[in-house]
């Protein structure tokens, strides 16, 4: 049984050009919400660059939770839009997630030009102070 699993993993690794360990990691971590956030932002905001960081581990929630996220969204659609409107666009796309379990969403919304001239470093969100005890 293990032999066949190993073979399958090797096959997958070959097909996807990823390391074997990476495939195993991908198979074991179920990050459905993270994937859905990424996919939705990509399609709805036609992002040039996107990063979705699960910051749940920094908070008072069970291991492996998907409750606290930080997203970096770079899109042409943000051109000539004030910050609050950009945040509203992201919130709107992720409405379902925010109503179903995603509890904190930190947003960095930049235009491609702004992203180019920035240092492209992402600072972690402020430390939790224990208010969310679920």
């Amino acid at each position: 049984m293990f032999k066949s699993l190993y073979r399958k993993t090797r096959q997958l690794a070959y097909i996807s050009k990823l390391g074997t360990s990476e495939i195993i990691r991908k198979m074991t971590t179920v990050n459905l919400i993270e994937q859905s956030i990424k996919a939705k932002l990509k399609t709805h905001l036609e992002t040039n660059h996107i990063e979705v960081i699960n910051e749940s581990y920094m908070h008072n929630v069970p291991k492996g939770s998907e409750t606290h996220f930080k997203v970096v969204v770079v899109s042409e659609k943000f051109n000539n839009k004030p910050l609050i409107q950009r945040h509203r666009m992201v919130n709107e796309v992720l409405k379902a997630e925010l109503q179903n379990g995603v509890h904190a969403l930190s947003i960095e919304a930049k235009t491609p030009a702004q992203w180019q001239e920035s240092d492209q470093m992402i600072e972690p969100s402020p430390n939790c102070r224990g208010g969310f005890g679920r």
Partner: protein
Amino acid sequence: MNVFNKIRNFRNIGSIHRLYSVTPKENIEKIVKNNKVVVFMKGVPEQPQCGFSNAVVQILRMHGVTYDAHNVLQDEALRQGVKDYSNWPTIPQIYINGEFVGGCDIMLQLHQSGDLIEELEKAGITSALLEKSKDEKPK
């Protein structure tokens, strides 16, 4: 007869209550217009219970702003009400001059870019940071 009266009284009270009760929207509108700067947060300024709320408290402290703080953890109706009011899904929320400004990320950016000083000025508040920089450069 007695029971009938009681029921009638009860119904009267009910209708009076309906007459005077305000909708959550009106309630929040009253709160945000009651003070120049209003913050809806988790915990209280002396002891914020969320990192994002804490960041907002620290920023406002740096600018020496006095503000009205409301703890949404104490009031579930307020927590949902304020989200509906501003159509903004997260807490904290900051209002200046009765207008929704944003959450923690936006406050942080306004602070870093210096735009917060301007926003406060529009509400007739002089930021403590502005006064400090004046003292430092007495040209």
